[in-house]
């Protein structure tokens, strides 16, 4: 016999009172979604400023950046950053962007806000856990950023924290003592927040769907968030113990990731017996699924918006898209070694990891071709979210194509430590995921804040960003092929000097593109207060979030229990009012 008390998807909590409980420690998934979104916004602004500093230094290594000496007297004496400090900033840029932006905004931000609404629920399955995951993530963020303000700065070991550099402490370089420990604690905390969030997403999707919302009728976005949550639940569970072991190497005197006989700063290290490869295995077992944790929500958002833009569902409905996303998710756990082709693995292992890496391009290609085939011949509506969705396809395909090269060990050995890889992963993971976030922001802003974002500013933002990212990252592929190594703070070798003009071009492109992001920020906050009032359904879309007022009431559906009758994307339907049928409309469709 089963207890039936908590079976119905009923309200878990009453509307809160007072500012603190409404906006800070809220249990409402919509507030928590916004909190995650603004946390990411803070992280992306810091990450972007760091990238400007690094890009400036790469192009004009001898020039001082006024004021930077105030951030770190040792790291940037007179405003000129040292090679070590360059690596510190690199670490912070990568960690902020990967964890607190790409992992946070598309999944925890938009997912929290729209997953319950899109399945017709009043909140997440575990609202208290939901609040806890946000605040845990927030503590992780503060811990990470605090490394900027300790004496020797953030660690120099990169966002991947490769051992033994990351495990040896201060002897190995600046920031590797306290900075590295703070980094590990921050990421460990982030893991806990992500695990709690993933658990909540899965339970919500399975249990809280409203009447008629079968799995097949879930919007693409819900599928994407669900699959991403499964990835998160499995992947972060490996990074968490890896972080614990790395902390033990620092504070417990263990040697999990440190081999014997290392001499650093003229001192023989007391460690022995550990394996540097073990860290890489544990890190990338998490790290590769992480790439898809960052991009699958973007794939979902793009598909969701593309259907509305093209006024038709994707070819093959959700079956093809979801099948491909599941295939990608499964394969993502079998390919982690392709990050380690030059790490000293057995070459036969490289072959073993290369094959599934090439196989994973098949579902990714099917999704891309499906999008292109959907757009083909459609009557597109070129509003800003639609432009960013189409832009997503472009950058996703461009960035993905260089992946074919890197998947082959023989080519990767040459390309791995060059800017080719920097261009590749920024394009496919960074820019594509960010385009997904922009598309989502422009598309859902009216629902979240009750006002429209400015279209003119939005279109300027899109075109400058779209052309800008190609100007930044395409030349990186070229200089990478020319042998330009990455992780260097300045290029002084003979063979690299002819490439400096390209670096200058990239830096200027980065500043122009960055200026467009300031326009986006202005548009975001200006529209929040001054934008045109939004209607319930400004984009003529069909899913449940567009059946409720903008912004939605506290319990989403105002006490109503929505009933779903239709597939999520009944767009371009002839004979319907408008050209679409809402998911919860009782209207009968003419049988085809």
């Amino acid at each position: 016999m089963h207890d039936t008390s908590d079976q119905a998807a009923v309200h878990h909590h009453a509307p809160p009172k007072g500012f603190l409980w409404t906006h800070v420690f809220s249990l409402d998934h919509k507030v928590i979604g916004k909190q995650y979104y603004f946390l990411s916004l803070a992280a992306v602004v810091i990450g972007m400023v760091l990238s400007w500093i690094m890009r400036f230094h790469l192009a004009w290594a001898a020039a001082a950046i006024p004021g930077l000496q105030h951030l770190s007297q040792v790291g940037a004496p007179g405003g000129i950053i040292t090679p070590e400090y360059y690596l510190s900033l690199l670490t912070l840029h990568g960690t902020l962007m990967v964890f607190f932006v790409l992992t946070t905004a598309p999944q925890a931000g938009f997912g929290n806000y729209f997953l319950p609404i899109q399945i017709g629920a009043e909140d997440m399955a575990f609202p208290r856990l939901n609040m806890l995951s946000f605040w845990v993530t927030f503590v992780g963020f503060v811990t990470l950023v605090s490394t900027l303000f300790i004496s020797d700065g953030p660690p120099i070991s990169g966002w991947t924290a490769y051992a033994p550099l990351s495990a040896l402490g201060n002897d190995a370089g600046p920031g590797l003592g306290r900075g590295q420990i703070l980094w590990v604690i921050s990421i460990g905390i982030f893991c806990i927040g992500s695990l709690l969030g993933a658990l909540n997403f899965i339970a919500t999707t399975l249990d809280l769907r409203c009447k008629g919302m079968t799995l097949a009728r879930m919007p693409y976005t819900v599928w994407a968030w669900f699959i991403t949550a499964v990835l998160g639940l499995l992947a972060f569970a490996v990074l968490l113990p890896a972080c614990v072991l790395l902390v033990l190497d620092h504070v417990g005197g263990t040697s999990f990731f440190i081999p014997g006989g290392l001499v650093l700063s003229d001192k023989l290290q007391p460690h022995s017996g550990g394996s540097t490869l073990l860290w890489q295995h544990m890190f990338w077992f998490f790290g590769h699924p992480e790439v898809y944790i960052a991009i699958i929500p973007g794939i979902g958002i793009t598909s969701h918006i593309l259907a509305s833009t093209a006024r038709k569902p994707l070819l093959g409905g959700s079956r093809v898209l979801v099948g491909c996303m599941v295939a990608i998710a499964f394969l993502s756990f079998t390919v982690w070694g392709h990050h380690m082709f030059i790490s000293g693995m057995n070459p036969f292992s490289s072959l073993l990891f290369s094959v599934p890496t090439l196989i994973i391009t098949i579902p990714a290609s099917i999704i891309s071709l499906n999008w292109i085939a959907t757009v083909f011949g459609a009557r597109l509506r070129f509003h800003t979210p639609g432009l960013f969705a189409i832009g997503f396809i472009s950058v996703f395909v461009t960035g993905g194509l260089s992946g074919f090269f890197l998947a082959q060990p023989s080519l990767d050995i040459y390309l791995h430590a060059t800017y080719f890889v920097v261009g590749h992963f920024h394009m496919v993971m960074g820019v594509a995921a960010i385009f997904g976030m922009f598309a989502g922001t422009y598309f859902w802003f009216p629902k979240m804040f009750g006002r429209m974002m400015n279209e003119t500013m939005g279109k300027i933002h899109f075109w400058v960003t779209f052309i800008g990212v190609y100007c930044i990252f395409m030349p990186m592929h070229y200089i990478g092929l020319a042998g330009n190594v990455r992780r260097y703070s300045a290029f002084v070798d003979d063979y690299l000097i002819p490439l400096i003009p390209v670096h200058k071009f990239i830096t200027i492109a980065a500043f122009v593109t960055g200026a467009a992001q300031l326009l986006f920020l202005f548009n975001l906050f200006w529209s929040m207060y001054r934008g045109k009032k939004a209607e319930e359904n400004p984009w003529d879309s069909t899913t449940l979030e567009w059946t409720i007022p903008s912004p939605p009431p506290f319990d989403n559906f105002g006490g109503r229990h929505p009933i779903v009758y239709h597939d999520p994307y009944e767009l371009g339907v002839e004979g319907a009012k408008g050209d679409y049928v809402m998911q919860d409309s009782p209207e009968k469709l003419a049988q085809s």
Partner: protein
Amino acid sequence: MSESDITLKSGRADWLGGELPYAIPSKKLGMWLFIVSDSITFGAVLVCYAYLRLASPNWPTPFRLSSIVNGAIMTFVLLSSSVTMVAAVEAAKHGRIAASVRWLSATMLGGVVFDILHIREWLGLIHEGLRLYQNPWGSSLFGAAFFTLTGLHMTHVTVGVIYLGIVAIGFRRGKFTSDDVEISGLYWHFVDLVWMFVFPLVYLLSARMH
């Protein structure tokens, strides 16, 4: 709206909302998902242990017969506590609250005895010179891997004892339902199951052979 209005295009009414797939309430599903995630965490640490052991030429095998016997008693205690947990869930399902609380207390006692025996074992090894960073027998990684793995498990047992205590008190006061007892049982059985991997991999495979 009557049920018949909810026919899909295909003519089936296959999701009525509010019902739960496989009749698993959200809380129980949450615990299952936690177990999935936590088993991956333990899996990672176990694989880590195996990796380091295979990569080390001088992996020590320090466990004397007394240690193995002690470990066997610990295993017996923990397995018995799983039996009492089953009895607690069974009693809870039939509404016998006092009996359920008694069985829960017995389960907690099993956990505490396990912890005491385990800590005694740790202290003995520490006395023989085993440290997180060194030991007199061979690879220094042995201590690191041993303490991390068994420590992680011991933490889970300790957290479990506290968790069961909270559930027992709440169940007696009527704040928790029999489902909550069952969910705490899932956690307890999972912690037992993990020990079934830790004991052979760490203790039996590192028994002193002469």
